[in-house]
């Protein structure tokens, strides 16, 4: 029925099945929208946040999806600036995933603020010394970059492409894409970094506080680095999930292998930097403020030292080794393990840098504060996932996202 919209030379599932899929995910989406409207109309009392937990699940979700969406800027940087041409076969999908991640982050932020109608104050009355200002500026600018990178893909739809204006526009945008990608990489480095800075500058919170270079704490650099390392892993992960669901091979192994190898180098170097940072913080910074490392991991029922071990060893060193050794990363099972662990690792790091910062007591007579999100918070966090799946479904069906699909899946 919608065959005129489907790219030439590829096969898609029958329309009713597609619509059924959209409806099922749509129900989850509506649940999230309902929770979102509750939060907007009734206020943040709908959440389980409190005065100890000003930052909670939502901020974590923001930081995590932005790190995972980092695949877009890093793959773009490699493809357009460093000229790794093979990556053109996955860049479209990386851009789409990035677009979803960033639009989701902006949506969650719009729910998270107490006075959403005043959100523009962050731009208009900007305090240039605040890391959050830097986040807001770079995030929204980079979101426009992603939109600019996504538009040519939409214009490639068979029917849209027939219109001369859109055909030429898409073509012209492709030609100057390197300029946009470079701007995007510049913006990304800063907002990924400033998200790290959000926690790192809190000198009243010894668990988060880090020294650094000029105005940037070490977490600034670590966040950019980890996003560049783990973002591509998430791109590979979503590609593999898409291949599994559609039952088709969409990207050639050499492309995945190249991206996995680069991720491995990034992750390996990141984890070394992270270990050095952790050692310096645990032995110099924290003790100078009156804290032992173990003070941050005791007297509560959740945040034990296990979380540090899982983050660094299980979700850092292990996937880095797998991705760095050709024999390991060419083994499918090991590759999947590595990309899943790396994605979990970066999420865990963001969790620790938001939630544990809030949970750990600072005053000597204060106590740990643990929190369990309300259903409204969970629903609004799942909302972007549902939205992402729907956008991927629509984009995959109607846009030529994977240049190698035709070649890998010939239709008789």
């Amino acid at each position, binding site marked *: 029925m919608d065959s005129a919209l489907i790219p030439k030379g590829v096969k898609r599932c029958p329309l009713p099945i597609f619509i059924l899929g959209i409806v099922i995910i749509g129900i989850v989406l509506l649940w999230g929208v309902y929770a979102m409207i509750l939060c907007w109309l009734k206020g943040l009392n709908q959440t389980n946040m409190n005065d*100890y937990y000003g930052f909670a699940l939502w901020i974590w979700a923001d930081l995590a999806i932005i790190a995972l969406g980092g695949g877009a800027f890093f793959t773009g940087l490699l493809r357009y600036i460093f000229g790794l041409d093979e990556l053109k076969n996955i860049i479209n999908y990386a851009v789409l995933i990035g677009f979803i991640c960033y639009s989701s982050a902006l949506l969650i932020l719009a729910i998270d603020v*107490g006075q959403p109608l005043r959100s523009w104050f*962050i731009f208009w009355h900007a305090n240039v010394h605040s890391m959050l200002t830097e986040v807001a500026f770079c995030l929204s600018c980079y979101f426009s970059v992603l939109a600019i990178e996504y538009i040519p893909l939409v214009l490639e739809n068979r029917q849209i492409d027939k219109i001369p204006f859109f055909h030429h526009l898409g073509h012209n945008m492709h030609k100057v894409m390197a300029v946009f990608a470079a701007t995007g990489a510049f913006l990304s480095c800063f907002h990924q970094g400033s998200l790290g800075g959000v926690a790192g500058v809190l000198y009243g919170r010894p668990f988060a506080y880090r020294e650094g270079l000029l105005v940037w704490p070490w977490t600034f650099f670590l966040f950019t680095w980890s996003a560049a390392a783990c973002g591509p892993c998430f791109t590979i992960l979503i590609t593999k999930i898409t291949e599994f669901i559609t039952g088709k091979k969409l990207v050639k192994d050499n492309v995945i292998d190249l991206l996995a190898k680069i991720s491995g180098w990034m992750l390996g170097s990141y984890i070394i930097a992270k270990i050095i940072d952790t050692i310096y913080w645990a032995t110099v910074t924290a003790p100078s*403020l009156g*804290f032992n490392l173990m003070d941050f991991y005791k007297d509560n029922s959740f945040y034990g030292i296990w979380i540090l071990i899982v983050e660094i060893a299980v979700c850092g060193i292990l996937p880095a080794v797998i991705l760095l050794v050709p024999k390991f990363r060419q083994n499918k099972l090991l590759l999947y393990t590595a990309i899943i662990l790396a994605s979990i690792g970066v999420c865990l790091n963001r969790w620790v840098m938001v939630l544990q910062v809030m949970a750990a007591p600072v005053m*000597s007579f204060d106590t740990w*504060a643990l929190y369990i999100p309300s259903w409204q918070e969970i629903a609004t966090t799942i909302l972007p996932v549902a939205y992402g799946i729907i956008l991927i479904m629509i984009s995959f069906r109607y846009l030529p996202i994977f240049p190698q699909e035709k070649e890998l899946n010939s239709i008789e």
Partner: protein
Amino acid sequence: MKKEHNHMKNKKFGMCIDLDKCTGCGSCMVACMSENNVPFREDETDKRKSITWITVYKITNNRPFPDTEVCYMPRPCMHCEGHDGHSPCVSVCPATATDYDMATGIVSQIYTRCFGCRYCMGACPYHARYFNWWDPVWPAEMEKYLSPDVSPRMRGVVEKCNFCYSRYQRALDKAYCEGRSDIEEDEYQTACTQGCPAGAITFGDLNNKSHAVYKLKKSPNAFRLLERLGTNPKVYYLSSKEWVRKAGDNYIKGENPKNIKKSHH
């Protein structure tokens, strides 16, 4: 802001709270709530959602009976100066909704500017900042008791102790009308200071040698909360008990508080 006040010496309002005198009665909290139109709800069981600009903490020496000792510690906003006014909360606010006033040393909160991101709450190690999770609603008959000088806050913004800034403004207005350029120590006192039945709280200009706080802050029993972090607070505590003074900061095992260098201002 700095330039405007160059002609007169900057003030640095601060507080000294004598913990030996504090009985933990909570009058300071009540006085503060009524002075500053602090909203409350019918059910205030969840203390982490209650707004109390000044909170009385109960701390103990963690020793078993009969050596157990208890101390009550009122905690207003510390009005941290940090390094050159770089307080933990002021520097992080993305919308410039909170400000360190160099002329008074008071950390202000601009309610109509705040858009409720709560970054400042995360930055404050004292939990002195509160979010309006609900719309402020007072029982109808209570609205007449609201202070006309203090604007009530709306849902979704952060608020905190401002050292009863409205009282400072009133005192300045009065002085101006009487042709004076400055105010006396007793003309500007916070509600908690006046509400304390034990006289445990002393308020004044920490820069002014004639003010009581100037002498009190130099007492050997004086300490501030979390000085090691470099927050440079303007609320001093006095206690004759060593364990109380030690509870003001964190120390790693074997560390002697006396050997720790802290910045004094």
